[in-house]
């Protein structure tokens, strides 16, 4: 059967229900059974019914899994196809001495913070490409960095197992390192960090398999999140309208959705075939995308509680390091280990563009807060702004 109605009818037909085992002869025409035997038979029938309901439940799960044709791209068939996209590198930010590992936009839509394997954290004005601040961390591999909502501070960390906050001074000559505040302490590398709605709290994920929420002022641990079976590589906070949740992805191939207040894992998705390097919420907060070493990006809907789309091509065999949506959620940008950026039509599941420019892996990708451009960072030591 092909359409939804006929599938439902097909499965409802009694022919397709599992059958009860044949009834015992004496249930239909008891000669003169003893009371005890009758009770045993009653219990047997009830036991058979319990088994039937278990069998039905299993069958339902199987049928549910077979409902392949109820996927996003099928529903989206009537949506107009997208035209050609012309996106080019508009700015190249040069200054890092080694692989760029992470970047984040400031809410002012022009400043960017980036971090690198050589321990440097740089704040740039993306319009002019000028460097505004630079800090040298005491460790190499600064894998995570984030801009504070106020624009007055940046957070970063990596192999030092910590997340530190640096207030940004207006005086460019001031030594930022002097005002550094150590906030988070993990027992393994810091893989990602993000301020919550204010400069006061930071959410971190770590190679130690946990995520944690910290108070910036006191450095106190407010909540910890346990559930991943291996390194947690990425996280993203739900858009503020949708409440206090965040999603994390890990080396255990799982994407977990967490309640920030209770620390509970409220939903978990395990369909990727390898490490999940990046997770990002859909702008409405009802879904999130993930990018993985299995060379696919996937879209998970939180209310349908399942994967609803997979973005892949046979010709794409290198892992995805980073994903982000355009403002309307129609486009999904993925940075890949084969140096390219693939642009996907989120609804139709097709690739609309492939962008070349970087000379090594794309390690990080973020769309600007007003959606006018996106920035990528690469192992080729540069960052590029695309529009």
């Amino acid at each position: 059967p092909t359409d939804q109605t006929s599938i439902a009818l097909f499965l409802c037909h009694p022919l397709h229900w599992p059958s009860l085992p044949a009834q015992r002869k004496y249930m239909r025409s008891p000669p003169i059974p003893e009371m005890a035997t009758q009770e045993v038979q009653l219990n047997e029938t009830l036991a058979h019914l319990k088994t039937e309901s278990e069998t039905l439940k299993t069958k339902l799960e199987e049928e549910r899994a077979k409902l392949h044709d109820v996927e996003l791209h099928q529903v989206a068939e009537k949506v107009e196809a997208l035209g050609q996209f012309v996106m080019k590198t508009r700015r190249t930010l040069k200054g890092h001495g080694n692989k760029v590992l992470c970047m984040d936009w400031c809410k002012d839509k022009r400043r960017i913070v980036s971090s690198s394997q050589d321990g440097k954290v740089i704040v740039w004005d993306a319009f002019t490409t000028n460097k505004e601040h630079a800090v040298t961390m005491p460790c190499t591999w600064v894998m995570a960095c984030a801009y504070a909502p106020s624009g007055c501070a940046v957070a970063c960390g990596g192999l030092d197992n910590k997340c530190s906050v640096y207030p940004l001074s207006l005086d460019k000559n001031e030594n930022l390192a002097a005002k550094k505040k150590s906030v988070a302490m993990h027992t393994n590398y810091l893989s990602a960090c993000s301020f919550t709605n204010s400069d006061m709290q930071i959410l971190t994920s770590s190679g130690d398999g946990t995520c944690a929420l910290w108070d910036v002022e006191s450095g106190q641990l407010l909540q910890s999140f346990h559930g991943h079976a291996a390194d947690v590589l990425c996280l993203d906070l739900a858009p503020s309208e949708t409440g206090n949740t965040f999603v994390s992805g890990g080396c255990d191939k799982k994407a977990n959705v967490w309640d920030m207040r209770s620390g509970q894992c409220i939903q978990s998705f395990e369909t990727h075939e390898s490490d999940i390097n990046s997770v990002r919420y859909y702008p409405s907060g009802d879904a999130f995308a993930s990018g993985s070493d299995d060379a696919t990006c996937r879209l998970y809907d939180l209310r349908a509680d399942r994967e609803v789309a997979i973005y892949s091509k046979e010709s794409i065999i290198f892992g995805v390091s980073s994903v982000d949506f355009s403002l309307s959620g129609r486009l999904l940008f993925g940075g890949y280990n084969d140096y390219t950026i693939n642009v996907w039509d989120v609804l139709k599941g097709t690739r609309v563009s492939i962008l070349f420019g970087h000379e090594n892996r794309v390690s990080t990708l973020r769309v600007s807060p007003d959606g006018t451009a996106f920035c990528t960072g690469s192992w080729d030591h540069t960052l590029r702004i695309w529009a």
Partner: protein
Amino acid sequence: MNMSTTNNIAQARKLVEQLRIEAGIERIKVIILVICFVSKAAADLMSYCEQHARSDPLLVGVPTSENPFKDKKPCIIL
């Protein structure tokens, strides 16, 4: 035979019949729910895209004059 045993059997038969009907209904319900959830979820995602498409600069493209990254002004070398 005593009345209560006959009643028990009758009741049990009713129960069995009832449970079979319920199992069938439950099955239909879950299948329809799954179809509806995914269809509804997909429809909501589509609707969000549609509503916000016009204000998505990377999707619709903005003129050079309006996108600060697309400016034609030469870089100022200090």
